[in-house]
């Protein structure tokens, strides 16, 4: 009987202040005695005391209720038993004129039954109320989104007090281990809220596959860490429930008791209520966190993707990726390496928080040893090192010495081949989150796109430049052939005709005139041919370079030219040709469309670039989309990695600026 009752009362009893419990016990013993004494006094002094006597029985019932509320079921039942016994033996029923007028045996039996029932009911109600109150307090914290640490601390304490445990510990599963997140002990400050235990074997393992509750009556012979706890804190029995969150076993709520009789029966059920509440709170927090983390990740990725889409230089993308990935993964260092054909890796970007150590850009190291860069180079797959024990390689050893503890990395695959890797290292003792690789991966995909774009662009530019160079060479050759062939023959013929002219005598009639006409005709054909050849390729450019070629252009232009060309030495041929055509086209347009009175041409070399500037004072308003002639120029300039811009506001002249890098 007592053990059954104990199941739902002992916990509540242990929640009471000891003074209150002591008082309840004192009243439990003194109360019946005093009441029976009062009854005796009634019998002696009052003839008509029967009704009062019955009232006293009911007063006793009220006392039992009070004791049950204050001290629990044991003192209440004690009161009932003591009162019935005292009444039976010490205060026999009052008989008046042969008729019993006070409570008889049947009345006492009724009293006893009612007392027990009321005690049980009160105890149960109070117990239930206590449980609901405890859960409500925790639920209120959940509703107010208090920090997880605080919530867990309060929940362990409430659970401990409710089930009457001496020790409570809440732990979570983290990559195969149980790690304490909160603890409470009845004696303040005894039970540490830290520690990690392997969850692979033993006690805790039984939670993982299914939602099971475990109770161990004597834990000294079980799971070793628990047994150690048992010895250290005198824990005799334990009960545990899993905490389920987002459909998986998140962790464990473990309670221990030092009492010999162990934890009450309903302990697991009540712990389960807490575990449910905690599980829901954790699920909510996790989905909130994962949502905000997802949003954060998406924003970081979008920032990088915008860079990539905008055609930013790969170096800018690399730097952005190391920083964004570092911030997102909350690590202290991220770096990006490129694998070189000579079996080394070179750091192309790096980011660090707090400057504990750094991975300098440009640092080159041969592959080999136990480090992520080498592992990834061998597997072309994401990899992680959950601890830096036994790592080798200069870079990683420096990090290990600086207190770094773990790392995760992913390869950068460009069009199916391994190009490089991004590695993030952390000083945290805990391993990086399980999805860290996947998160780095989404960045490395962007890097791959950027690299691929840059390579394609470089190839395209190079091929464009090659096509142009080949065409230019062909034109140069045609011009040369014209000059060396037809032009020379015509020149020779002209000279021959001149010689013939010199031999003409006055008797030859019209021969002199005819020869003169032939010579003029030849000269005219020669001029036409020169004009044609010049259009195909300006020979002065290949013979004299850009300076003389621009002067020639200026002289031939119908609009007056102000030429400001610094002494320009010979430049790479593609640059000379492009610059020549840029100026030539600008002058042609100025002469045709602008009504300009003067055109200024500037050419200067600065920081290994050729800057060209053409400005006229004409009517402006030229098509900003560039005419077909200028489109060809744009192709030509961009093929060399240069830029060209035309500005032509109506009424304010037209200006053209081109910039050509001298080194390819």
């Amino acid at each position, binding site marked *: 009987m007592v053990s059954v009752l104990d199941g739902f009362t002992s916990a509540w009893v242990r929640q009471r202040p000891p003074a209150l419990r002591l008082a309840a016990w004192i009243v439990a013993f003194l109360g019946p005695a005093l009441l029976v004494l009062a009854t005796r006094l009634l019998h002696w002094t009052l003839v008509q005391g029967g009704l009062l006597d019955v009232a006293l029985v009911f007063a006793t019932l009220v006392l039992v209720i009070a004791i049950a509320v204050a001290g629990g079921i044991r003192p209440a039942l004690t009161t009932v038993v003591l009162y019935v016994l005292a009444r039976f033996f010490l205060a026999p029923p009052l008989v008046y004129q042969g008729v019993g007028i006070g409570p008889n045996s049947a009345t006492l039996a009724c009293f006893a039954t009612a007392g027990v029932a009321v005690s049980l009911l009160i105890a149960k109600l109070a117990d239930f109320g206590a449980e609901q109150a405890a859960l409500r307090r925790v639920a209120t914290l959940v509703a107010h989104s208090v920090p997880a640490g605080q919530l867990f601390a309060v929940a362990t304490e409430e659970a401990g007090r409710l089930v009457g445990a001496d020790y409570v510990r809440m732990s979570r599963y983290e990559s195969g281990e149980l790690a304490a997140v909160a603890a409470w002990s009845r004696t303040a400050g005894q039970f540490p809220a830290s520690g990690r235990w392997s969850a692979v074997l033993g006690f805790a393992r039984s939670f993982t596959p299914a939602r099971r509750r475990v109770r161990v009556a004597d834990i000294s012979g079980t799971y070793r860490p628990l047994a150690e706890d048992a010895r250290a804190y005198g824990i005799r029995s334990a009960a545990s429930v899993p905490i389920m969150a987002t459909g998986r076993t998140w962790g464990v709520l473990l309670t221990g008791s030092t009492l010999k009789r162990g934890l009450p029966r309903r302990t697991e059920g009540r712990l389960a209520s807490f575990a449910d509440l905690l599980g829901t709170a954790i699920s909510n927090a996790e989905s909130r966190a994962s949502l905000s983390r997802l949003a954060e990740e998406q924003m970081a990725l979008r920032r990088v993707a915008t860079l990539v889409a905008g055609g930013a230089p790969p170096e800018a993308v690399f730097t952005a990726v190391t920083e964004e990935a570092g911030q997102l993964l909350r690590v202290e260092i991220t770096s990006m390496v490129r694998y070189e054909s000579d079996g080394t890796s070179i750091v192309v970007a790096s980011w660090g928080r707090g400057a504990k150590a750094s991975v300098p850009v440009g640092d080159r190291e041969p592959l080999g040893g136990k480090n992520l860069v080498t592992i990834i180079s061998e597997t072309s797959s994401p990899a992680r090192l959950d601890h830096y024990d036994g790592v080798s390689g200069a870079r990683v050893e420096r990090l290990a010495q600086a207190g770094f503890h773990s790392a995760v990395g992913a390869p950068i695959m460009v069009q199916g081949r391994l190009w490089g890797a991004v590695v993030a290292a952390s000083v945290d003792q805990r391993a990086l989150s399980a999805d860290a690789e996947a998160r780095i991966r989404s960045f490395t995909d962007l890097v791959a796109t950027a690299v691929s774009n840059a390579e394609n662009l470089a190839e395209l530019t190079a091929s464009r430049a090659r096509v142009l160079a080949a065409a230019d060479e062909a034109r140069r050759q045609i011009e040369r052939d014209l000059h060396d062939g037809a032009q*020379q023959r*015509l*020149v*020779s013929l*002209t000279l*021959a005709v001149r010689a013939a002219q010199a*031999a003409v005598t006055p008797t030859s009639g019209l021969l002199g005139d005819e020869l003169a006409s032939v010579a003029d005709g030849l000269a005219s054909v020669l001029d036409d041919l*020169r004009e044609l050849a010049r259009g195909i390729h300006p020979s002065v450019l290949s013979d004299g370079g850009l300076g*003389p070629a621009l002067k020639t252009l200026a002289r*031939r232009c119908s609009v007056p030219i102000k030429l400001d060309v610094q002494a320009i030495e010979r430049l790479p041929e593609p640059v000379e040709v492009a610059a020549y055509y840029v100026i030539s086209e600008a002058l042609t347009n100025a002469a045709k469309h602008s009504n300009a009175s003067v055109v200024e041409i500037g050419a200067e070399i600065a920081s290994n670039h050729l800057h060209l500037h053409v400005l006229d004072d004409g009517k402006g308003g030229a098509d900003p989309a560039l005419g077909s002639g200028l489109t060809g120029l744009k192709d030509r300039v961009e093929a060399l990695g240069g830029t060209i811009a035309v500005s032509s506001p109506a009424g304010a002249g037209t200006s053209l600026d081109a910039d050509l890098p001298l080194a390819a």
Partner: protein
Amino acid sequence: MRGAGGYCNAGGVGFGLVVVDDNRSFADCARVHLERQGERVLGVAGTSAEAMQLVAELRPDVVLVDMALGDECGLDLARLLAQPGCAHAPVVILISAYSPLDVVELIAASPAAGFLPKSDLSSDAIRQIVATSGRATAGGHLAGKNH
């Protein structure tokens, strides 16, 4: 200049000329033309090296240098010939099949005494350039440093 007398050499002795041109047919043509006008074409060279050798051997008064010497550049040869260190310093006249308008910048930068379009090659034109170069005497004899 078109008159027969115009081609006569006033002093009776023509300039000693060397023609440098890789286009043999033009060089021959020019030789005939100029000799008919009374000049003495001492030799014809097709390359810079040949030209230097001929100039050293024949000591001409005037060297006509084609600006486009095959793979070589006539302007470079003109610079070589005009060097103070050159044993014999003839008057260098650049010639070309190009229009003067196309090459005037190159000529301006060259130490050559003048330029003649190939189609306008004549004794008179040569003499005019020599005269303006300030190295010719009234009799056609050069007043160069080596004379």
